[in-house]
């Protein structure tokens, strides 16, 4: 009952329409990969020599040694305290900075200053920042806390500023139309809208700070990272392994809790 129709085929058009260009890109990418791998200083002899050592290290890590739990507990307690304090302080500072750095509600110079602070806080990896703070204020938890405060400020500040820029402007206008000034507008029209985001980010940051606190400890900024580093230095691989196991456990637990809380408030 229907007339036969010509068969029509369809293929997704290639991302790069020009075939010459398309194949040149392929060739260039493979040439680069070959060059990159060939020129990296893999020294096979050393890798082969190192293998037995790796086996020895892993061998002596078994069974993990939990006897020095006192040392471990004090290290982890310090790390967790560092993470909590740094999250509280960092998030508290990030709120005014985020307000400054929100283009939609701050005047241009304030906006640029706010963005500048955030960019500065984000420009170095926590380990580099920790090395600098250890030099500045000495070994120990203070350097670690300062590092994590800066880390929290950069991350939470940036995302919170974006959240503020995305709020429903109609709500701001309604509050402004009632004769409210800047602070009242913040409290009534902006904060309620960013609250879920704010809580989620803070919990996420606590989680991240817990991880990072172990890392910055390695360069002398206090916490379990220092204990871990000392264990390696003294060839106590079994103790180091025990620390790693507990660390993984703590991170899993904190990840589970924070995920559940963030889902709860969404």
């Amino acid at each position, binding site marked *: 009952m*229907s007339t036969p129709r010509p068969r029509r085929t369809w293929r997704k058009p290639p991302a790069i329409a020009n075939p010459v260009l398309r194949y040149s890109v392929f060739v260039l990418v493979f040439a680069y990969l070959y060059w990159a791998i060939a020129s990296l200083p893999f020294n096979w002899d050393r890798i082969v020599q190192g293998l037995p050592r790796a086996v020895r290290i892993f061998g002596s890590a078994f069974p993990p040694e939990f006897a020095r739990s006192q040392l471990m507990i004090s290290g982890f307690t310090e790390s967790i305290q560092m993470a909590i304090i740094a999250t509280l302080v960092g998030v508290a500072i990030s709120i005014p900075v985020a307000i400054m750095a929100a283009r939609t509600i701050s005047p241009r110079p304030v906006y640029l200053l706010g963005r500048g602070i955030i960019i500065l806080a984000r420009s170095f990896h926590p380990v580099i920042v920790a090395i600098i703070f250890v030099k500045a204020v000495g070994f120990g938890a203070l350097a670690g806390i300062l590092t994590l405060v800066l880390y929290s400020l950069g991350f939470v500040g940036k995302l919170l500023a974006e959240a503020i820029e995305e709020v*429903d402007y*109609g*709500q701001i*206008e*309604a*509050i*402004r*139309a*009632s*004769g*409210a*000034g800047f*602070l*009242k507008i913040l*409290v*009534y*029209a902006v904060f*309620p*809208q960013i*609250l879920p985001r704010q809580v989620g980010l803070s919990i996420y940051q606590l989680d991240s700070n817990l991880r990072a606190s172990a890392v910055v400890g390695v360069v002398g900024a206090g916490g379990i990272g220092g204990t871990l580093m000392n264990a390696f230095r003294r060839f106590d691989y079994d103790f180091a392994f025990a620390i790693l196991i507990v660390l993984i456990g703590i991170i899993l637990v904190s990840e589970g809790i924070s995920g559940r809380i963030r889902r709860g408030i969404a």
Partner: protein
Amino acid sequence: MLKITDLTKRYGNGELVLKGLNFEIEGPGLTAIIGSSGAGKSTLLRCINRLVEPTSGRIVVDGVDVTTLRGRRLRHSRRAIGMIFQGFNLIDRLSVMENVLSGRLGYVSFAQALTRRYPQDDVDRAFSLLERVGLQDYVNKRADTLSGGQRQRVGVVRALMQEPKILLADEPTASLDPKTSQQIMSLTRELSDELSLPVLVNIHNVHQAKEFSDRVVGLRYGTIIFDGTAAELDDDALDRIYEGTAGRGEQGEEPVDDMAIDTRGVAPS
């Protein structure tokens, strides 16, 4: 009450959106502003409470020229001008009562606002207005759990909490179904009468404009082209307001008559 003189507005370096408006509202009553999309109705309303900066001209509200005010004096002048929005613009995550009390933000201190400790008079006024619009059972409900009609009632109450001298409404019923829209318009009309409050309403629905208003102002490309009573708004006047523009608010588009989509091979056999 409200006197607008030679008001112009342009956004950035664009065309003039308002081209030298003059009009005056002397006393209570509901004035409808009609005109096609882009005529400048919202711009006009938003100039009055300075959500938009006028380019030139004078706007005098209750004896005060609001066009030059800044800072605290601007905020104080805004207290006298209530506003209702098309999208309600309630604070979704706050309760009905908090939304209503936010109408007092221009009067209370920051500490009172932050802790929600409003003066007893404000709380009394909030309760009685909520009762007046039938929302006494929703005091502690979150605003985003209400229906559109209920939300706009909260919007009306919030504006009235300001004890305004004039009420502005920018298409207050455009997001509502026809029946609810009618209810909100009659509520606005009644409250205007009860409180002897002048109300300025932007509206696309010409029938409602005629039914509820004392006076109709027709805006066309930033110029007042009609200003008279609802009875004087005849077809001829409507033609002058809407002719050659995007089209009358209540007229629908021609429906697409047949959809020439071949369903062979898709339809169940």
